[in-house]
């Protein structure tokens, strides 16, 4: 076995074990500190409250009815906190809801019936919401739904189903000038009330021209998302099919792209010349209709969603 020149196999094995034990100790310490903090904090809150009530004797009973003047119990039911709102979610001017199953891509139909908020599991149709005038937000589209508190004695949540979710694509404008950057975000949004367990779903956005050519990698993009790679965030590694986390109504995933909309595919020919770093060979994408596609990835994921925008002359 070709071991390294710096150390022998046994030396490396010892080093690995030493580092591994250190990681274990650090995790145990962190867990112990977190556990202690969780115990100390409620006690300090109670103690602080009682300290502000000088005429009151403290009687904490483990069982039986609470004294009349005792500290009021915490009646809040354990709830799954709603997912945090996307930090900079733009006012959506273009939205597309995803069909419930793997319907054919590119379906365009007359304006949709916006699902009723009272229907817990709504089967949305494949639609493209007509673009509203610039500056207004579309109806029933993106943004967070109001969180519905879970029942205090609710059974364990079940695995999420695709029909409980919308994929919402939001663009900052409807029509852009040549070379003008396009900001687009795609949000996976739980529209049904209650809590369910969502697997490791993610959204990947593509950009197509009117001929259906994929321009995503050529448009010059920056990308960010609030995706959680659950296999890395958890102590016990898990795969997408096993990584389940509880989510309530609202956004559970957001991916944001900013495309520069410049075509840098026509590299110089002739002698070998790498891509000029100054981008002098790039040209703005031509006027026309472009399509944003949000592909829904992960186990048992839904169909992609689409939205269009124009580049004017």
């Amino acid at each position, binding site marked *: 076995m070709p071991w390294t020149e710096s150390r022998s196999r046994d030396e490396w094995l010892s080093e690995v074990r030493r580092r591994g034990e250190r*990681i274990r100790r650090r995790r145990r310490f962190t867990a112990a500190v977190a556990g202690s903090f969780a115990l100390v904090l409620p006690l300090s809150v109670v103690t602080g409250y009682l300290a502000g009530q000088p005429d009151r004797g403290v009687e904490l009973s483990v069982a039986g009815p609470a004294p009349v003047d005792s500290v009021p119990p915490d009646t809040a039911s354990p709830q799954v906190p709603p997912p945090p709102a996307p930090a900079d979610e733009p006012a959506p001017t273009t939205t597309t809801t995803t069909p419930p199953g793997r319907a054919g891509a590119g379906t365009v139909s007359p304006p949709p019936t916006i699902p009723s908020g009272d229907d817990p599991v709504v089967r949305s149709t494949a639609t493209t919401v007509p673009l509203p005038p610039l500056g207004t937000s579309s109806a029933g589209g993106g943004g967070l739904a109001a969180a519905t508190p879970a029942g205090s004695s609710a059974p364990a949540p079940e695995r999420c189903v695709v029909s409980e979710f919308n994929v919402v694509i939001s663009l900052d404008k409807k029509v852009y000038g040549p070379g003008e950057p396009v900001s687009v975000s795609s949000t996976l949004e739980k529209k049904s009330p209650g809590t369910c367990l969502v697997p490791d779903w993610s959204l990947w956005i593509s950009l197509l021209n009117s001929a259906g050519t994929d321009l995503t990698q*050529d448009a010059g993009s920056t990308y960010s998302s609030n995706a959680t790679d659950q296999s890395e965030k958890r102590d016990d590694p898990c795969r997408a099919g096993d990584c389940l986390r509880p989510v309530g109504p609202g956004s559970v995933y957001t991916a944001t792209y900013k495309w520069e909309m410049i075509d840098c595919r026509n590299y110089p020919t002739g002698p070998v010349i790498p891509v000029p770093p100054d981008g002098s060979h790039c040209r703005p994408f031509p006027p026309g209709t472009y399509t944003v596609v949000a592909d829904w990835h*992960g186990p048992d994921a839904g169909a992609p969603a689409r939205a269009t925008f124009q580049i004017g002359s």
Partner: protein
Amino acid sequence: MREDGSFEAAFDELFPRAVRLANRMLGDRAAAEDVAAEALARAYARWSKVGGLSYRDGWVLKVATNLSIDRLRRRVPEVWPQVEADFEDGVELRMALNAALLTLAPRQREAVALRYLGGLTDQEVAQALGISLGSVKTHIHRGLKRLRGRLGAGLEEVTPLAVDGIPLA
């Protein structure tokens, strides 16, 4: 201890693989050994769970890939070769390749690195990343397309069709 015995066997197989993967990304043997040691140490710390995984190898190599990427980020800003750069120079080519890898989306980067630098099959990559086989192929396809675009159309004129196993033409 049985657990430790199984780790030793896995260590003998995985440490050299992790060193090779990291070395292909970092071009620095000492740094690659350190990355491999850290990846195996993290596996050791969780061996009661990691050791039993069907995608154990992919898990370790994925950690090694991400540690290598972290080092690349700290070490090398995104510097493109100069116009007169000589791509016949393997060092400059690796620098360009590493810089191009950093521009990929996270999953694309992991998929490409595990597939071509880690030597995993598409199925093993899918297991390691916890995604479907179709998603792996999509990520690799897009990642390679972007790498080819970044490294220039004229690259194949002077270099083999692949660099470090990554097909560039």
